[in-house]
């Protein structure tokens, strides 16, 4: 069976990014504004999913772009601007999470999560053939937002980086300062957790 498809990055998109970065580095603020417009929607999704909180997500988005602007000189033009921006946005989002560390129902990103707890599926039912077509995009987003909020932060963050941003396991480990086996373990738990939560929406014959 084939793994889910991953769309390759569009080379024209990357090339335009680099052109804009180059001009922004020379002081053209309009070019930087264009970079904001091109990426803000995806970066906002990332900050929203990691923080699980609208206010923090908005602040993290703003701070990520501001930091990107102030550190633009450090960007190596041989790399991908979007990936560099993702790294900054992840760090800003994690800082927001750390500030909220004392709030209930959070799990430390450093806490070992390698036990078998939560691995055993409870909901086992055949899903619809094309589950995503059952809901409109807006409805689906609301369902995902809701279910992601109930997921421990340590799982959620790995899921965002690996499955949404499709960042490699190794790079995810570097970003979160955890080991590669820990990334794999958390990704497995995150996927199973989300599967369990989505089951009631997509199990064949159920109307949620």
């Amino acid at each position, binding site marked *: *069976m*084939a*793994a*889910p498809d*991953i769309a390759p990055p569009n080379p024209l998109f990357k090339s335009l990014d680099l052109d804009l970065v180059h001009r922004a580095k020379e002081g053209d*603020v309009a070019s*930087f*504004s264009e970079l*904001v*417009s091109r990426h*803000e*929607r*995806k970066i*906002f*999704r990332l900050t*929203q999913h990691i923080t699980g909180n609208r206010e923090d997500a*908005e602040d993290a*988005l*703003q701070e990520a*772009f*501001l930091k990107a*602007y*102030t550190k633009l000189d450090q960007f190596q033009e041989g790399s991908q601007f979007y990936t560099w921006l993702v790294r900054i946005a992840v760090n800003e989002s994690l800082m927001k999470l750390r500030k909220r560390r004392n709030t209930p129902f959070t799990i430390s990103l450093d806490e070992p999560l390698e036990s078998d707890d939560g*691995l*055993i*599926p409870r909901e*086992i*039912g*055949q*899903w619809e053939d094309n*589950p*995503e077509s059952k809901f409109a*995009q807006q409805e*689906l*987003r609301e369902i*995902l937002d809701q279910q992601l909020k109930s997921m421990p932060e340590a799982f959620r963050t790995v*899921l965002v980086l690996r*499955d*949404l941003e*499709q960042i490699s396991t190794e790079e995810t480990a570097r970003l979160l300062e955890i080991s590669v086996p820990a990334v*794999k373990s958390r*990704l*497995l738990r995150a*996927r*199973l957790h*989300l*599967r369990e939560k*989505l*089951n009631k929406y*997509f199990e064949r014959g159920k109307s949620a």
Partner: protein
Amino acid sequence: MSTCKKLLTELSSYLDNELDSDLRVEIETHMRRCPDCHIIIDSTRKTVQIYRGCDAYEVPTSLHERIEQAVKMHIEKSTGKC
């Protein structure tokens, strides 16, 4: 370790095509005989597809303007303009 438990442990690596061929064959052989494991793999694959297909978020105009304002203020501050 039972094959069901092994399948669960290797589920992510299986979906990401990261398993060596022997283990992959072992899991696929088991999956054909075990309906529950077949359902778990199928629904987890669909979970990943649904999540990957999640749309980017609309950024409110006020937030977009806030970002531009923050950059503008940074420039004014760093160039000494009021």
